[in-house]
Each structure stands twice: as structure tokens, then as C-alpha cells.
């Protein structure tokens, strides 16, 4: 096993059972619609720290769940 994700429906399972998703965030200072669209679909915050992300439990309930994960050490906080 490696990193585990807690699925609220199924319980703790290895990360390999899940598919990664992400919540794009566009900074407020980008106001031009085209620039906002480019940022939304291509740019990433890519933080070295905690980020909120979505995982789909492909091998279990087949539903999305939301966790907060520290990208430096993969610690999950929710």
C-alpha cells in the first residue's frame, strides 16, 4: 500500500483506487473574460503545501470526494 485516502462512504483505501481531480482557481485580478478562461483551463496554483482536491473512488462507490492534502508530504487533513 502506499498513500491512503479516506472515502466517506467506503473507508480508507489505497490511493491507487482513486482518480485525481482538481478544483481550478482563477485569481480575482484577472478580469478579462478570455484571460480568465485561459487561466481557468490551463494555469495551476501547484502549491507546495495544502491544497483542496477531488478524488473519484473508481474501485469503490464511484463518487467524488473532497480532501485537503499537503503536497509536500501527502498528509491528508480531511
Amino acid at each position: 500500500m502506499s498513500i491512503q485516502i479516506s472515502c466517506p462512504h467506503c473507508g480508507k483505501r489505497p490511493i491507487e483506487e482513486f482518480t485525481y481531480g482538481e478544483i481550478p482557481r482563477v485569481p480575482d485580478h484577472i478580469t478579462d473574460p478570455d484571460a480568465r478562461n485561459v487561466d481557468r483551463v490551463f494555469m495551476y496554483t501547484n502549491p507546495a503545501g495544502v491544497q483542496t482536491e477531488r478524488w473519484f473512488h473508481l474501485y469503490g462507490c464511484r463518487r467524488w470526494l473532497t480532501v485537503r492534502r499537503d503536497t509536500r508530504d501527502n498528509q491528508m487533513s480531511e
Partner: protein
Amino acid sequence: MPELKSLPFTRIVATPMALDATIWPAEALAFRAANDEVLLLASSLPTIADPHAIILPDSGFVGVWLSAEALQAIFEQHCEWALPATRPVFVQGAVAGIAAKLWLEAERGLLIVPAAYGHDFAERTGLA
């Protein structure tokens, strides 16, 4: 060797509230696959209090009843995650690299996988 057989499930997708309130037929096995989804093994259908519920027969899963010992042997070799101690219990997750569903009773259990993976699952777990 016991083999995987098609299971006559009914698949029900409805609001979690409607599923919570449903009274399942006696002797039915109702597996809560997700908050809003139930896999039902029963001879009759209950009323679901959701006018938009999707209720359909589903032959897409195969399964096999195995003794607790036989299941234990499979899990030990092919399942990385810990099974809960309570019985009876319904759990889901990867077994032998395939999405499996398990209904565990005290002395036996039902092991369920999508029919599309039945061949591989049987081969990997020695059920074939």
C-alpha cells in the same frame, strides 16, 4: 471450485433520504453501494419515495458465495486494505486489482465483481 455466476440485481439510484426511508423486503440483500445507490437482491421490489429514482434490473455483476476461510485466503493474498471486524457488513474496494464488492456474514461471504472483469478476477484469485 465455486465459480462466479451472474447475480439478478436490481440497481436503484435515488435520493439518499428516499433510500434511508425504504423498508427492504424481508430476506433481501440491499447493498448500499453509494449514498444514493443500492444494489438489491430480492424477489420483490419495495416502494422508493423518489419519483425520479432509476430502478432497473442489472445483470452486470457476477458473484460467488465462499466460506469465511476461503475468503480470508483470497483477501490475505489479494487485498491491501483492512476488512472491518463487524459482521454482517458490506464493503467495496480493490481485490486482486479489480473493483470488488463484498457482503460478509459470520460464516460466509458473497464476493461480487463486474461481469466484464469476471474472467480476470477468477484467474487472479484462483477461482477459475
